[in-house]
């Protein structure tokens, strides 16, 4: 190991991950977009460095703990990072950095930048805090902060449609977090503690446990836009400015999913029964099929990508039934998390490049995008690479995820999920090729293109390369994920 890596691994990175984005948000709010644009690259670069440093520490020394300001539980805030946390933080930092480069070009001389930079700082800070939090109430606060920042970003677009989308999103987010909070209140009432580590194993099967599980799962499922509670997502994600769509679709829904994972496999584990897991899986299957079907019907490029998110969220929820049998549980866990990761990179790349395509063509109507291949060859190539990952074709992170999930389904004999995944893969190919085929069509006569700034396509291209690379460096990623994982050591 080189001395630089040793130095990186020796620092305590956790406070940086929380503090830096929040301080940046305050500065950007106070001193305006011009300063923010100057500060943002070093700030987010530092974020990526911090996330890398933490990942190295977790990889070398195992899970990390940090008491904020020296105050531990129960009144202080305890932070915790294992392999899953480290991966989520890395994902957030990397995508955040790419979106920053994109946004600097996208919002150039644009009034929306004034609101965009502070809100993005809050969004990233809240997300980092959520991933690091280890007690149920802190998780509520970060969840709420994250929701408010996200709604603020959606409301950046002008017009009544954007406002309505933002309000719908806000109401759904508030409803979700209050359902979650009621669950937290019940848990505290029953067990007198909120620390996840102390609660593990305490929840026993019974009406109270089931009520808690139902409330918290329902609340978080609304926030993750699980079928049939996805109604708020397409207008919010499809209507927002492209960098915002990328942040929301790639990162924000992963935060509530992450929380759901933690709860199901740590807090709820003793009280979960098979029908509950199968039911969640059924909703996931509904999301895959129905979301893909709706994506097929869309005429606007960004709406198609947004409905694709509705569909892809479904795969995440297949994790729950697939992990409920000992054979295949580890593969299911790895596959689900891997899907969250690779979907984040692929979807961020896709939304960013969709923004560049809309910029170039001046509109987002899919059927009139003919000739976009000649105008933006690297752009359509980026879209294609991201599509490969979303379709689950090799070599890509999406493929590794699909392989692991299929492996889990076969090992546990749940063949019905195999059919869903196969059909879902084909449907995703069907809707994504609706866009890709435009690259081969002649340019319509009335079309006029303008050249987008190089950074727009460039940053999206880098993200799509990461989505591809996740398929090639799966070994290292899975090693990191295994640190502190619930199934580590259980051979499939």
């Amino acid at each position, binding site marked *: 190991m080189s001395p630089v890596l040793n130095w990186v691994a020796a620092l305590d990175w956790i406070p940086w991950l929380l503090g830096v984005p929040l301080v940046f948000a305050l500065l950007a709010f106070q001193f305006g977009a011009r300063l923010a644009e100057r500060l943002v690259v070093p700030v987010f670069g530092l974020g990526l460095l911090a996330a890398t440093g933490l990942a190295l520490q977790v990889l070398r020394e195992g899970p990390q703990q940090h008491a904020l300001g020296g105050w531990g539980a*129960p*009144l202080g805030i305890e932070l915790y990072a294992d392999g899953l946390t480290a991966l989520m933080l890395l994902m957030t930092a990397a995508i955040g950095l790419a979106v920053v480069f994109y946004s600097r070009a996208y919002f150039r001389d644009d009034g929306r930048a004034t609101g965009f930079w502070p809100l993005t700082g809050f969004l990233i800070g809240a997300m980092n805090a959520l991933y690091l939090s280890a007690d149920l*109430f802190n998780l*509520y*606060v970060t969840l*709420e*902060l994250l929701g*408010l920042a996200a*709604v*603020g970003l959606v*409301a950046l677009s002008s*017009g*009544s*449609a954007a*406002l*309505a989308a*933002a*309000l*719908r999103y*806000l*109401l759904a987010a*508030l*409803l979700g977090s*209050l359902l979650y*909070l*009621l669950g*937290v*209140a*019940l848990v*505290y*009432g*029953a067990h*007198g503690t*909120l620390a996840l580590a102390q609660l593990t194993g305490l929840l026993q099967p019974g009406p109270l446990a089931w009520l808690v599980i139902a409330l918290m799962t329902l609340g978080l499922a609304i926030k993750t836009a699980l079928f049939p509670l996805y109604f708020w997502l397409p207008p919010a994600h499809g209507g927002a400015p492209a960098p915002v769509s990328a942040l929301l679709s790639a990162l924000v829904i992963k935060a509530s999913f992450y929380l759901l994972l933690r709860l199901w496999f740590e807090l709820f584990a003793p009280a979960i029964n098979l029908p509950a897991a199968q039911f969640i899986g059924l909703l996931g299957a509904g999301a895959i099929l129905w979301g893909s079907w709706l994506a097929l019907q869309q005429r606007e490029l960004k709406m198609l990508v947004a409905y694709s998110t509705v569909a892809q969220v479904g795969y995440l929820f297949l994790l729950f039934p697939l992990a409920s049998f000992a054979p295949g549980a580890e593969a299911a866990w790895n596959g689900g998390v891997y899907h969250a990761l690779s979907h984040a990179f692929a979807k961020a790349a896709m939304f960013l490049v969709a923004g560049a395509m809309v910029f170039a063509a001046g509109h987002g109507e899919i059927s009139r995008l003919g000739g976009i291949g000649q105008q933006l060859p690297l752009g359509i190539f980026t879209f294609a690479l991201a599509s490969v990952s979303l379709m689950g074709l090799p070599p890509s992170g999406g493929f590794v995820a699909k392989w692991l999930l299929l492996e889990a389904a076969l090992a546990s004999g749940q063949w019905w999920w195999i059919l869903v995944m196969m059909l879902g893969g084909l449907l995703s190919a069907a809707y994504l090729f609706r866009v890709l085929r435009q690259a081969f069509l002649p340019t319509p006569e009335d079309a006029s293109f303008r050249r987008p700034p190089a950074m727009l396509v460039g940053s999206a291209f880098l993200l799509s390369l990461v989505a591809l690379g996740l398929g090639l460096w799966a070994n290292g990623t899975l090693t990191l994920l295994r640190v502190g994982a619930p199934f580590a050591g259980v051979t499939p």
Partner: protein
Amino acid sequence: MTPGLLYAITGALLFCLGLYGLLLHTHLLRKVLAFNLMGSGCFLVLVGLAQRGGQVDPVPHALVLTGIVVAVSATAFALMLVRQLYVETGRATLPGEGDDP
């Protein structure tokens, strides 16, 4: 029945009432009020259930204070959005959800 439990049950009822309002009312101001009702219900449950042992538990107080701050800021934000929607469209309902002004 201890007073704590009574508070908790009241809180649960308030939560349900708020949920009903949030889902079924179309006027956005009513929705925001319903959300506040749900929040208050939640806080009552949190404080009420924790008092069962007879001793005062300080942790829920800290939590509820934080919760109230979060709820207030969320409410302010929601009201701002509702007002802006009203300025732009002249209506205080979401499109496709009833027509009361």
